């Protein structure tokens, strides 16, 4: 009988099924990765665009000038958000494979859903920061222009403010900055979030980033023309039964991105309907959950 003592190892700590802190760590590392790709340089281009539009003397009235600044800047914000969502999301997984970071991450107790969620979270944080900065720059520009136009109107009537001047000031204020515009930026964020979730699903299937980008852009364009295309085809084919069936299938499979374009209405001065904004937030959440789960379905036992 040997009296040598055997030392028992303490049992391995159980790993929780899901950890927010792991997702957060992955999201922050994705954010760092994207910052290193110099993505925020786009903000300089945006600032230059705003300066050019702000000093372009083509509008027939101050109201028209302010309206144009708002439209161009919010249009550029929207464009940046969805384009960035596609490109950044499409690049992330292939780059992790190429750098072999993916193997290091997945060899640790990290669930694949956490990995996908972390990646998506990182992209959404970058989009959120960019949209916030662009919104602040845009708000500053609009308010600066608005104050300038109002000062011009006031100085043009030295004998007190007349009815006409008051009318002109009201029109300038109507087309100027208002806090609802923050919801327009939020609408662009929602659209970008849905686009990113669609792209992450495609990237779990795809063999290359280029393929993912091209297909995602196509899905986005087609999804944007939902109503326009269905109306057009139905009119062209005289409500043909087969076309109607195909259109139903098309509507079911392709996300409707057009309804996420409600920032355009807000920029044009439409009054906010809080119930609708909440509905759209809920819909965005549903898209994120469903597309992440579908991505997991492909990604869960994918061999690298």
């Amino acid at each position: 009988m040997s009296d040598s003592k055997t030392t028992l190892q303490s049992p391995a700590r159980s790993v929780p099924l899901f950890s927010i802190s792991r997702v957060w760590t992955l999201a922050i590392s994705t954010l760092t990765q994207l910052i290193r790709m110099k993505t925020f340089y786009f903000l300089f281009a945006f600032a230059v665009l705003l300066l050019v539009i702000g000093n372009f003397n083509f509008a027939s009235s101050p109201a028209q000038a302010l309206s144009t600044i708002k439209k161009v800047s919010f249009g550029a914000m929207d464009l940046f958000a969805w384009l960035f969502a596609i490109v950044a999301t499409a690049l992330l997984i292939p780059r992790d494979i190429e750098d072999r970071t993916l193997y290091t991450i997945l060899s640790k107790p990290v669930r694949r859903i956490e990995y996908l969620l972390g990646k998506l979270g990182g992209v959404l944080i970058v989009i959120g920061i960019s949209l916030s900065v662009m919104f602040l720059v845009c708000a500053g520009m609009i308010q600066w222009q608005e104050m300038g136009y109002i000062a011009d109107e006031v100085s043009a009537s030295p004998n007190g403010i007349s009815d006409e001047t008051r009318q002109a000031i009201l029109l300038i204020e109507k087309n100027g900055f208002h806090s609802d515009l923050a919801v327009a930026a939020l609408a662009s964020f929602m659209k970008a979030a849905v686009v990113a979730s669609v792209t992450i699903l495609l990237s779990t299937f795809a063999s290359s980033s280029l393929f993912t980008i091209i297909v995602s852009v196509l899905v986005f364009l087609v999804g944007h023309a939902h109503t326009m295309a269905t109306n057009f085809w139905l009119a062209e084919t005289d409500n043909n039964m087969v076309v109607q069936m195909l259109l139903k299938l098309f509507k079911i499979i392709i996300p409707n991105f057009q309804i996420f374009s409600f920032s355009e209405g807000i920029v044009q001065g439409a009054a906010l309907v809080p119930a609708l904004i909440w509905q759209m937030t809920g819909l965005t959440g549903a898209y994120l959950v469903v597309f992440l789960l579908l991505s997991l379905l492909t990604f869960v036992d994918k061999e690298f």
Partner: protein
Amino acid sequence: MKALFQKSPRWLLVLVGLAIFGIVRAPFEEHTRKKLVDSHLLLPPPAQDAIQQMSQSALMGTLGGLRTLVSSYLVLEAFEHFSNKEWEELRSAYAIVTSLEPRDENHWRDVVWHLGINATANMQLDETIPEFERKRRFNEYALLAVELAEQGIAQNPDSAVIRQQLAEVYREKLKDDCATARVYQDLVGLPEAPQYAERFAGYFLAKCPGHEQEAYDHLLRLYYEGEHNHVASLIITIKDLEKQLEIPRSLRITEPYPDLPGLTQP
């Protein structure tokens, strides 16, 4: 179930998942889309004829959710046409712009201003064009401006700026006092209507043959509404109408004829 899950190709499962989600979300999305359009938060799809007129790049931009950018670019293009006095091109550019953003009253106001005021002024002055052609085009642009203003008002029923621009076309170019009065009267009560609209409706109604009594009643009501309406032009018009309508002296307003430089008391 687990075996079926493992055996089925993943793309098929994803498609089934997409279809189930699609069936659930489609009615909700359609309902939300209608509500968004009704509340003016979402723009309705552009009209068929606008799509046909658009260049490929503009159409792609519109499809890609860049309607506001495309329309802003077209407004810039229209401004260039205005600078070059290319009225037909300007008209085509605005046909697309107003179709892309029918609820932006600024676009309607601008196209009415360009065609109704600028293009007609150009036709009055441009001696390189034969006179009969200038007259024909003057009428064409003025009437087109009126038609566009009416389309704009149909899209934006509460718009004061389109009506103000329309009134200017009737007043300055078509010299139609009755129509001018009608447009100013339409302005009254609108959320952004100028305060002078009600007075102006009276002034132009006074010049509209057969409506003098109506104009007199209208202006007198404004006069008795308060001191703020006792402006020189209102008093002069009432006094002129009193003479024209032979109102008894006892019923006439007591205010003296305003002493304005250059104005000779009749």
